[in-house]
């Protein structure tokens, strides 16, 4: 069966070969390109790329020693898989010429019709190639976020197929709807950097996967605590760092709006860190670093859709709100409902993204972004309604599609590893490797003979 799936996967790339024929037309340098805007966007591409390894460390530190490599592998593999999918198919589905508001046309299939010098159709001051890269990084990190929900128990081959299908069938359309001129954009939904497209979609999908897969072995008997919190903190730092490219880069230019997006992003992350830490401090008496980094990420998630539309003080409020809300979600609600969202992909991205998307409907103001809208607090209740609808659609679409995809894959193979493999740990069982030298005993030559 595994072979079978491998063949499937390999097929996907074989499919690319015919595409090798078409060639980009001769370059025609578009005079509209600004070297300053391009410089910031190039830097932003790099910053967003590094978020995925950041996520890998953030998640990797949270799992048990025996599964850390499986986490790193999933995140790293996504960087590879989605980068190629994006070039060949994904980009054009998301940003090709709009077809009935539903999906993009195939004019950029396999990067055909992307001459080197052209400006991006949707951002005329930067090269098309840079816009493609920037968007590719979003598709990558989004797929990565989901992995936190099914950590420590999914088969690798299933993960590969799932990720490929999910990005193609869930992310690409959603990105088109919101950013590619699709119907949600036309409907007036505000999502500056991906509250719905990135965080709600991944968080809700993660919840569905967690429910379909079921709990990890012994989850109820054993406390499964992070095996390496410094690793998690390092990852969170890279996320915070890269998020500046994510949000401020979404201005698609090097200007005041980018500056303001940068400012509110940092502010919301900070406020949420404080509010999460104080919340747990008051709740159980200890301020934790795990809480601090979780709060920071929650704040970054919540400000993402709002980052180009709100004021610094609004960012503080959003941050102060989302911290305790996500803390409750992961410490209380999860317990209650009893699903095993292993690393809280839903608890932080699903919940935080929803908070942010709705908050955008409250705090958005044209004083910050003339191209934006006013929110409820600026006399436009309608925007809150619009945001609500957009959130609802994202929830339903991501949830159902994910469920369907899993069920289909389930027809071919079990989704979970065997109990023996789970007991042994995914690193040794699936990848034939150990993270820290065999059993971390550090015995000379790691107690292994060639």
């Amino acid at each position, binding site marked *: 069966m595994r072979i079978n799936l491998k063949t499937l996967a390999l097929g996907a790339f074989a499919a690319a070969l015919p595409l090798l024929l078409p060639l980009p037309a001769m370059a025609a340098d578009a005079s509209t390109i600004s070297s300053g805007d391009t410089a910031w966007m190039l830097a932003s591409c790099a910053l967003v790329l590094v978020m995925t390894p950041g996520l890998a460390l953030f998640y990797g530190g949270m799992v048990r020693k025996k599964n850390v490599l499986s986490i790193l592998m999933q995140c790293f593999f996504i960087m590879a898989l989605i980068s190629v999918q994006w070039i060949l198919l994904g980009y054009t589905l998301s940003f090709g010429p709009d077809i009935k508001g539903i999906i993009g046309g195939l004019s950029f299939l396999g990067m055909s019709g992307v001459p080197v010098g052209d400006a991006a159709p949707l951002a005329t001051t930067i090269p098309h190639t840079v816009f493609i890269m920037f968007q590719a990084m979003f598709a990558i990190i989004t797929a990565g976020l989901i992995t936190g929900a099914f950590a420590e128990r999914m088969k690798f081959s299933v993960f590969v197929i799932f990720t490929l299908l999910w990005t193609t069938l869930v992310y690409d359309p959603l990105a088109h709807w919101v950013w590619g001129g699709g119907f949600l954009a036309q409907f007036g939904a505000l999502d500056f950097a991906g509250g719905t497209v990135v965080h709600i979609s991944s968080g809700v999908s993660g919840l569905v996967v967690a429910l379909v897969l079921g709990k990890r072995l*012994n989850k109820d*008997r*054993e406390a499964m605590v992070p095996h390496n919190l410094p690793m998690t903190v390092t990852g969170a730092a890279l996320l915070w760092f890269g998020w500046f490219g994510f949000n401020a880069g979404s201005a698609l230019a090097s200007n005041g709006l980018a500056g303001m997006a940068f400012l509110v992003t940092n502010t919301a992350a900070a406020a949420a860190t404080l509010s999460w830490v104080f919340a747990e401090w008051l709740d159980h008496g200890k301020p934790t670093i795990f809480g601090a980094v979780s709060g920071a990420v929650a704040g970054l998630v919540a400000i993402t859709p709002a980052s180009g539309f709100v004021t610094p003080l609004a960012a503080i409020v959003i941050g102060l709100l989302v911290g305790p809300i996500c803390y409750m979600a992961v410490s209380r609600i999860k317990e209650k409902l009893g699903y095993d969202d292993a690393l809280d992909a839903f608890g932080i991205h699903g919940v935080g993204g929803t908070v942010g998307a709705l908050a955008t409907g409250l705090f958005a103001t044209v004083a910050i972004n003339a191209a934006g809208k006013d929110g409820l607090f600026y006399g436009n209740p309608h925007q809150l309604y619009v945001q609500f609808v957009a959130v609802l659609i994202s929830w339903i679409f991501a949830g159902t599609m994910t469920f369907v995809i899993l069920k289909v894959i389930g027809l071919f193979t079990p989704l979970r590893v065997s109990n023996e493999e789970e*007991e042994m740990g995914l690193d*040794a069982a699936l990848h*034939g*490797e*150990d993270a820290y030298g*065999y*059993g971390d*005993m550090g*015995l000379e030559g790691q*107690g*292994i*003979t*060639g």
Partner: protein
Amino acid sequence: MKKIEAVIRPGKLEELKLALNEMEVRGMTIYNVMGRGLQKDVKQFYRGQEVSVDLFPKVKVEIICRDHWLERIVDMIQKICSSGKIGDGKIFVYPIEDIIRISSGERGDAAL
């Protein structure tokens, strides 16, 4: 008094702790070990280089107990930790001559 040394699968530790707790057996000293025996080698790969692993992570549980407790504890360990598969581990029983409780200086049975 006897010293019981049980080499078990790491995954069984929590269950064993709970079970012994119910017998009011709390005192124990635990550490990670690597074990070798009949359990057959596992293959790993590093840049295509095959390495066969013949040491498996186990947990060693040491319990010093009064003689008449010995059998009950041994039975419980076996009951909890046995999966019937090779690699479950072994229990070793040793004689012990004396015990001193550092905090109080009590000796022998009293020190437990």
